């Protein structure tokens, strides 16, 4: 045994160990809770709002994702959007609307998320100035994906990641893929994990 041991009693070290277990265990538990706590759920209209300036497709479904241009968790949502589109034979019209609250400058348009979205094949990117579209579609959380069918009826509302900032399969993605493949999913909603878009609240609810 080394002669360098310092005089800490067994009791002192035992207490330190207990505190450590509690602190680290609590920290990891808190991290898991944070990662799996969804944002506010969307309450979109059952049919495509006429007032929307986003043009829906009439020959296929339309998927619109609302995203905060600076939300790091949405990086995973955009990655999963690309994965989702690669999995379906008949991809929908896809629009990613970056929500730009009033008073934000051009630097909000020049973000890596914006560039990532533009790089996904088949995706149109629009700027939602003043959160107008987000308000119309009652979407509160970045990463919210809404799927409307060719007739303009809401088919799905929710997120496509399993937890905050985490890439990989998710229930939301599976449901979206099922719908786009002509199957009925088990549910038409899923949790959304992302930053608050700061849109005008229509109602507050958690999934």
């Amino acid at each position, binding site marked *: 045994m*080394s002669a*360098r041991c310092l005089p800490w009693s067994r009791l002192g070290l035992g207490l330190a*160990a207990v505190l450590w277990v509690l602190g680290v265990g609590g920290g*990891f538990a808190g991290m898991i809770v*944070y990662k799996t706590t969804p944002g506010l759920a969307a309450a979109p209209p059952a049919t495509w709002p006429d007032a929307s300036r986003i043009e829906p497709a009439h020959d296929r479904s339309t998927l619109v994702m609302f995203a*905060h241009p600076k939300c790091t968790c949405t990086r995973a949502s955009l990655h999963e959007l690309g994965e989702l589109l690669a999995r379906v034979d008949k991809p929908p019209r896809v629009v990613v609307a970056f929500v730009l609250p009033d008073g934000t400058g051009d630097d909000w348009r020049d973000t890596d998320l914006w560039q990532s979205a533009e790089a996904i094949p088949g995706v149109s990117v629009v700027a939602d100035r003043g959160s107008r579209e987000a308000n119309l579609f009652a979407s509160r959380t970045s990463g919210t994906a809404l799927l409307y069918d060719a007739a303009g009826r809401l088919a799905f509302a929710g997120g496509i990641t*399993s937890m905050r900032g985490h*890439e990989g399969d998710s229930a939301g993605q599976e449901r979206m893929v099922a719908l786009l493949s002509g199957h009925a999913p088990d549910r038409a909603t899923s949790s959304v994990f992302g930053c*608050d878009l700061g849109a005008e609240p229509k109602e507050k609810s958690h999934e």
Partner: protein
Amino acid sequence: MSKVQTDRTADAIVARANARFDKWLDERHVATDRFFAWLLAGQWLFGIALALTISPHAWSGKVESIHAHVWLATLLGGAIISLPLLLIAVRPGRGMTRHVVALGQMLISALLIHLTGGRIETHFHVFVSLAFLAFYLDWRVLVTATLVVVADHLLLGLFLPESVYGVANPEWWRFLEHAFWVLFLISVLVYGCASTIKTWVGFAQEVVMLEALAERQLDTAPSEGA
């Protein structure tokens, strides 16, 4: 020299050699503890830098706040390394210290994986950590580290399978695929540790034989026992 005297002399020589070997191994453990002190501290700072680079802010509309990842990297990361660093400072070279260091190192792996959103590349840190822990030349430490990986997989696999396997409904045998690679590495590392110890024991025994020869040639009784 009578047989009794010879046996006593032999015991004394071997005891001195064992004490020398134990001292060498203890010095190895203390040096590895110091290495991990720097490594753990460095990884803590790296985690903070990672969080500040990848996810510095959370947003609510246009209002920014410090992202939870920054707090996690700073506070949880700091908590993880605290006990290992305390033990390295006050109980260097001890078996308990090595095991707590192993716990801390694997928990840092888990934290970094979560900070990077489960990125596949960050999982390499697990394997690198196991290799570093082999520096202790103590196979039991590798078992402790492996148990942390197993526990992490079991718990998260039960409650959040997507976070572990990347798919929502993994096959029941999926954990075996992960286990195989970990066990593969552990087997090699354990063999390496045992082989190194065996080689050093061999070196020590060569020295012992020479000491015995010198002792006989000097024709002196041993001055002390163990």
